[in-house]
């Protein structure tokens, strides 16, 4: 019978594990336990076996071993792909929100210091505005510097999310790009949950409030949620936009299932899917002529 501190042979002899927690953990991973003829261990066995000195050491060693094993399992669980990704996407959205607020506030402050300044008749983007604010010699200038740094950190985070999603969800990423795919996964909760969603749900993911007002009353139904951020949706002509969204939602539902159950890029699916989406997109262009 194998226990955490060593193996007890049928003849009663015992082989203790030698070493520290690491060796004990390795031994546990190798055990193959059979519940049918289970004999609960007792601390005396471990003492007799020579694995520990006394009961106190028994409990102490066992506790440290269990903590180490549990921490390992927690780590393995969290690094299982999309759990960290979801947190990263939520952080990105939160950063967007915070950075915009800070720029708005800093601009108001800048206007007070520079009564002659006005944004009228010249288009000053948020980025340029930060550059102007940074020139201030007061604490406002230093804050501008911090906002700038945060923006570049945001860009870095965005790139990381995108490249990670390419690995975790290669098919979804191929269809809509890493960032949009990551946002969809985040909104769905996880890749597992997204893979179980119907196409129509993926299509309007992120447009919940519009969907529920539609279901309650007589507003038109939402055509797109997060997938609107994808270029083939927002660049399409209004006449075919709903159609592009529907087709894309359908293909994404298949892609999510492929990503979750196979986890690799499937060109036999992606190539015709891309063609189909491009075709529906091009219908709008022709109508314009």
């Amino acid at each position, binding site marked *: 019978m194998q226990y955490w501190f060593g193996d007890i042979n049928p003849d009663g002899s015992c082989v203790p594990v030698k070493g520290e927690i690491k060796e004990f953990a390795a031994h546990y991973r190798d055990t193959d336990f059979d519940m049918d003829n289970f004999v609960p261990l007792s601390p005396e066995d471990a003492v007799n076996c020579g694995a520990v000195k006394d009961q106190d050491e028994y409990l102490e060693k066992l*506790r440290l071993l*269990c903590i180490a*094993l*549990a921490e390992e399992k927690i780590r393995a669980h969290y690094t299982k792909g999309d759990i960290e990704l979801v947190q990263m996407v939520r952080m990105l959205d939160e950063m967007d929100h915070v950075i915009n607020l800070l720029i708005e506030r800093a601009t108001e402050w800048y206007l007070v210091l520079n009564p002659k300044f006005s944004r009228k008749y010249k288009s000053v983007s948020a980025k340029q505005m930060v550059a102007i604010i940074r020139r201030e010699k007061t604490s406002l200038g230093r804050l501008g510097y911090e906002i700038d740094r945060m923006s570049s950190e945001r860009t870095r985070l965005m790139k990381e999310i995108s490249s990670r999603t390419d690995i975790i969800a290669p098919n979804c990423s191929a269809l809509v790009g890493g960032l949009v795919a990551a946002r969809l996964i985040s909104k769905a909760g996880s890749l597992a949950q997204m893979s179980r969603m119907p196409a129509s749900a993926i299509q309007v993911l992120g447009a919940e409030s519009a969907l529920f007002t539609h279901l309650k009353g007589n507003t038109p139904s939402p055509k797109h949620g997060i997938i609107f951020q994808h270029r083939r949706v927002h660049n399409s002509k209004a006449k075919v936009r709903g159609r592009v969204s529907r087709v894309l939602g359908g293909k994404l539902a298949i892609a999510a299932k492929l990503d979750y159950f196979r986890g690799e890029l499937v060109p036999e699916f992606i190539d015709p899917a891309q063609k189909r989406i491009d075709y529906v997109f091009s219908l709008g262009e022709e109508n314009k002529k």
Partner: protein
Amino acid sequence: MIIIDGVLVSKGQGGVYGEKMMKGYRVWSPNRSKFAALAMIRPGTDLNPDLKVLYLGAANGTTVSHFADYVNCVYAVEFAPRPMQDLIEVSRRRTNIIPIMADAGNPREYAPFVESVDMVYQDVAQPNQAEIAIMNLPFLKKGGILILMLKTRSVDVTVSPKTVFLDTLKELEESGLEIEDACWLEPYHHDHACIICRKNS
């Protein structure tokens, strides 16, 4: 059990989860903990310093920390990673808690760690609660007791709690356990029942 002015308490270092202190003791609220509720409803309930306990469904380790104040040692089994992080933190300060990250429905995962115990305490939100308890009986000493906190709503929401309760009693009895006591945890926890069984064979 230590009861001061009608309030259940335990002796130990406080501040585990923001619990109130009273004359140097940690208040063990029956509204939060099902075991505390049981102790209020059945004044005979007792925990003593010789007990070894297998605790299934340890969650964040709040009830576990009170158990640890009373008994010899607690083998605390929990499956979900988030509460496990908290449970590990509790076991760093309370050295008689062995935190085990495993599925209570799969005892072979943690069988190499657990010695035979005097009490199995189960508080899991699974539909097959009675089955899980029976699976864990090999760890229980002869004459030891099983305390099952039955979450009837987790078994089946469409069936009335009373039916679930009676079905579970039957299932436990058929497995050879002797039912010593069974009660509802009203008014502290709704639709929760407590079943206490003894293992005779």
